[in-house]
């Protein structure tokens, strides 16, 4: 600890160079944090997807509807525990850019199927009683300032009401939270019976089914059995694990994982060169001083430690501020106005980032530190 001042004082030496190096490290880690959050957002749900749930959709595409009669047929298939359906509503509240998803569901069965949505008992009861009732996730409620008791108008171009109106009004009866961090709390759910009665078209059709199975190990068999049940019918199905379903959604944006990895590799390679060069120069300029330290009785391993500590300090100041700034900016919100319902800096990415900071410090410091360790006093002092 008493060497801290000695190590830190070296940062004052070439202020511009040190500052620029730290700044580039900062930017690299800011970018890292942001990309991690975006990746997490795009893969959202995959990590929290129930492994005991399947999604059954129309074989051709998600847009195609399925008959509501499939529900009972799916429920009869061995291994199936429960079935609920959802339908894409595609509504807009005020600003089309402020995207969030809405789905009509059957409240009781739905809440039973998705224990990760935490709803107060009172709200649950209220929802059962009010036909136009809707529950909304905490994030969207906060975003639009909705409270329980509010009546919110949602426009949709997909679903016209029998009276010709394209504006649907819902009464907010509850606000739900996620049981864990990755749970999407941007969605709004309303009652299918209200929806089914009021819609002008699409009678007897729903969007897709969520199916809970008794034994997650047997998911592939059950999925196959479901698809076979509807083979050669006008509406064939594609059943898959919920995780795969969500992932398929994300894949539409491209293989974000590979893109992220490629960008970050390029950034870190550059940073490695930049700060490696800074440290190499720092030691070269200081050969004589390091020789003096050794002459005074500092050991070679100590000198090695000083140089390593210095490069870790540079990487630490730059990298940790970058991660901190990323965390602040990410907390401030999703830059896409809701296209990423889940947007946060995942803990494991944060820890990985801290590990990368340390790694960067050690890797860029090790060669100069090794050189510093091998400096011969007599040679170093002969330089002048």
């Amino acid at each position: 600890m008493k060497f801290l001042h000695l190590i830190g004082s070296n940062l004052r030496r070439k202020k511009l160079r040190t500052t620029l190096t730290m700044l580039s490290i900062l930017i690299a880690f800011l970018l890292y944090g942001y990309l991690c959050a975006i990746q997490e957002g795009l893969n959202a749900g995959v990590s929290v997807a129930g492994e005991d749930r399947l999604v059954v959709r129309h074989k051709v595409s998600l847009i195609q509807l399925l008959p509501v009669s499939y529900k009972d047929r799916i429920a009869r298939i061995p291994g199936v525990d429960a079935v609920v359906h959802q339908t894409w509503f595609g509504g807009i509240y005020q600003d089309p850019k402020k995207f969030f998803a809405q789905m009509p569901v059957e409240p009781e069965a739905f809440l039973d199927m998705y224990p990760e949505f935490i709803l107060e008992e009172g709200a649950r009861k209220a929802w059962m009683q009010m036909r136009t009732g809707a529950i909304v996730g905490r994030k969207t409620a906060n975003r639009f300032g909705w409270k329980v008791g509010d009546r919110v108008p949602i426009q949709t171009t997909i679903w016209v009401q029998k009276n010709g109106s394209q504006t649907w009004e819902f009464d907010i009866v509850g606000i739900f939270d996620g049981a864990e961090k990755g749970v999407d709390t941007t969605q709004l759910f309303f009652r299918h019976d209200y929806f089914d009665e009021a819609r002008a078209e699409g009678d007897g059709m729903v969007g897709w089914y969520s199916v809970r199975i008794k034994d997650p190990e047997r998911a592939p068999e059950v999925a196959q059995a479901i698809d076979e049940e509807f083979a050669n019918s006008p509406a064939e199905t594609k059943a898959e694990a919920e995780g795969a379903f969500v992932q398929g959604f994300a894949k539409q944006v491209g293989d974000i994982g590979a893109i992220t990895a490629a960008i970050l590799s390029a950034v870190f390679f550059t940073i490695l060169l930049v700060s490696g060069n800074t440290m190499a120069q720092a030691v070269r300029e200081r050969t004589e001083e390091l020789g003096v330290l050794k002459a005074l009785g500092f050991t070679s391993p100590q000198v090695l430690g000083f140089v390593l500590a210095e490069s870790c300090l540079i990487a630490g100041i730059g990298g940790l501020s970058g991660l901190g700034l990323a965390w602040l900016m990410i907390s401030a919100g999703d830059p896409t106005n809701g296209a990423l319902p889940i947007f946060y800096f995942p803990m494991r990415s944060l820890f990985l980032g801290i590990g990368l900071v340390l790694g960067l410090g050690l890797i860029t410091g090790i060669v100069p530190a090794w050189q510093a360790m091998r400096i011969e006093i007599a040679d170093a002092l002969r330089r002048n």
Partner: protein
Amino acid sequence: MSNDVLVHVRNVEKRFRRGSEDIHVLSGLSLEVPRGEFLALMGPSGSGKTTLLNLIGGLDRPTGGSVEIEGERIDGFSDRKLAAWRARHVGLVFQMYNLLPVLTAERNVDLPLLLTHLSRQERRRHVEAALAVVGLSHRARHFPRQMSGGEQQRVGIARAIVTDPTLLLCDEPTGDLDRKAGDEILDLLQVLNREQGKTIVMVTHDPHASARASRTVHLNKGQLSTEAVP
């Protein structure tokens, strides 16, 4: 006490390899420095004065012969042991002062104390005392670039004496100073020698400086003599 030999250099030989060339700098040189002596070491440039000083101070090892300080053969010490030995037993003063530019005077003087087990307060006391000895208490918070050459050299001397070593090794301590500043440094070394009993070996070119010493030896062609060889 006067017969007590502090530095005993026996038959040392020092060769450097430079490419295929073998440079013989010291060949079978012997030297005794009694405790309490102020010895001046003179000789033409390139004669090996610094090399000899480095051997005495444990900054380098001889290729032959032995170096014994206070009865200890230091030429066989491991790097680690030698570093610890230097920190305890020798104070070094360089021609170019060699202060760390990013540290204040007091932090520079504190450096050797970082290797001791002294508490922060004890270190502070030692630093203050050393700066007082060289008359620079009022410059404690200044950086080297804010000081004159003479002042920097005095900080260098404070750094050399702060651990209270028996032996002070000075390599052309006045070589880069004007006459007045140089005289002040020599006064200071004399005081340290006489009043604090430091044994001093000082390399110098300057007869004016060597006149302050209690004895002068000349190094020429790898050998020592009491007379300057013309």
